[in-house]
């Protein structure tokens, strides 16, 4: 749902964002309708077919998105204001992009190591803490989570090389 239509000032306008979001919702609704129609959206031998309820849900999504889009097109871009300014967008991306990388890393190095790296990097980069200070938060927090989930509650989380060294 991310949209990068920048206008001149380097910020994203509310009007652009409204239209883009409504468009994505409209496509989603259309897909729901299309797939429901494929599996049957009428009245079968045993009552309403599987697709009938979702078909009308999809229809309502399409209608409401179309109305929202129509309203957005009619609105004045100046009056609608900006969705997010350049500086705010940078701050939001400063959380979002590391989070995506962090989540992608979990599969390879396990959740505890990935979390420790994520917390450390974030603290050093955004909070301007020293590496020592950042590690002294990241490591205890994750050791605590490790004991809480693997030892006390016996809920296994994704693990990799490091945990294997301790026999987990």
């Amino acid at each position: 749902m991310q949209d990068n239509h920048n206008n001149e000032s380097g910020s994203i306008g509310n009007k652009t964002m409204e239209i883009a979001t409504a468009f994505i919702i409209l496509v989603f609704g259309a897909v729901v309708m299309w797939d429901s129609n494929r599996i049957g959206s009428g009245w079968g031998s045993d009552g309403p077919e599987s697709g009938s309820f979702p078909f009308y849900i999809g229809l309502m999504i399409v209608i409401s998105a179309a109305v929202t889009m129509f309203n957005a097109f009619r609105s004045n871009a100046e009056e609608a204001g900006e969705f997010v300014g350049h500086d705010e967008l940078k701050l939001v991306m400063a959380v979002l992009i590391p989070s995506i990388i962090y989540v992608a890393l979990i599969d390879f190095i396990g959740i505890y190591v990935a979390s420790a790296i994520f917390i450390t990097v974030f603290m050093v980069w955004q909070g301007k803490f020293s590496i020592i200070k950042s590690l002294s938060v990241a490591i205890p927090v994750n050791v605590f989570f490790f004991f809480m989930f693997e030892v006390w509650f016996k809920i296994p989380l994704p693990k990799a090389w490091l945990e294997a060294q301790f026999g987990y």
Partner: protein
Amino acid sequence: MEEINALFNGFAVALTWQNIMYMFIGTILGVLIGTLPGLGGANGVAILLPLTFSMNPVSAIIMLSCIYWGALFGGAITSILFNIPGEPWSVATTFDGYPMAQKGQPGEALTAAFTSSFVGAFVAVLMITFLAPMVAKFALQFGPAEFFAVQLLTFCSFVGMSKEPPFKTIASMMIGFALASVGMDSITGQLRLTFGSEELMRGFDFLIAVIGLFGLGEILLTMEEGLAFKGTEAKINAKVVFQTWAKLPAYWATYIRAALIGCWMGVTPGGATPASFMSYGIAKKFAKNPEGFGKGDIEGVVAPETAAHAAGTSALLPMLTLGIPGSPTAAVLLGGLLIWGLQPGPLLFVEKADFVWGLIASMYLGNIAGLIVVLTTVPYFAAILKIPFSIIAPVILVICAIGAYTVGNAMFDVYLMIIFGIMGYVFKKLSYPLAPMVLALVLGKMAEGSFRQALLASQGDVSVFWENGLCGGITALAILLLISPLLSKVWGMMKGNKAAA
């Protein structure tokens, strides 16, 4: 008095040392969740839910509902001391709470807020005690058509009562329904909207949506506002508490009005947030000196807090009796009941009376525990907010990721959580309401089931929904609520024309 007997049995169930311990743990966790940005009642309970699967249901629901009470209390702390509402329902508390703290009365403001929360919750619990068994008994006569009508009423009232544009409310709600129908159709066994993906066959778990929408989404929004928290010290001692308590009975009329608004808005799914604003507005209208409002009037703290807590608590009434949650957090608790194999609805009162009355009794005890906890520990929680956001943000994101993973032991859910987070951020900024989506995601399968059963019974004749007076009345009310934004617009236009002429 049947209810009183049942309630005392409930106290017997709830009052074990173990449960009291869970009560205090729950409240402390809840206050913590309520004060931290990015963790709120709904996603806090969602994250902790998987940890309770191994506990017995009574203890688990006591702990989880106490987290909810704690979060309701906790929202007030940040509003008053930092002018940052920890929860959406405490926005109205900032109007007078923060000015009071700045005038050097943070203790008075906090005491007033906590006490009002307690009073609001207490009134709501009293109402649940006496009204819930009646509603449940009445609902025992409901067939699929009536259930669908009640669900329709719930969703239509969202459209009618929310401040967001009606078509955005409908879009958000329908997206929830569409996501709920992904996976296997429980009636015919057919796969729907999976597009051949194995991951999608399991369907969308609403807990993932809650963690993403309210967790990551909230962090992104907080990030935008910058990272600094500036606040006042929390000074609170026994003397201030008793002095404030002596002042509060003078506002008895405000309390009654606020509690009534709260109970009404909680039972109908208006929710705690509009209840708090409405109560604030009405208190201002009735006040002797409305000029004082917004500058640190204690009544401006009493009114929204009482209503918010009354609404938050009474949201559990439709959840227990009809299986329809009145708020996102109640929806998460309902999800928990389903996981423990308890089907909320009228039969729960017959089949699992111990459980229901244990829960109701724990509401009385949990709110007392909550009041004690917050009054004694406020300075510590205020200190937590002094921790820089650049430490809190990554730790909360890690908790969200772990929470998302533990729901179904799947990495796919963690990726989904990120997508829901981005969606939550965009939707919030464009004023698409999130609560209807979550409720639709929870109730989707149930609503669809009762809709199809009703149609099956009537051989596809839609008139089944207004066949008898009860069902027809509810359906008519639902449609009236649905078109109420349109009606008020037309009325406004007519009035405008008259003024122009």
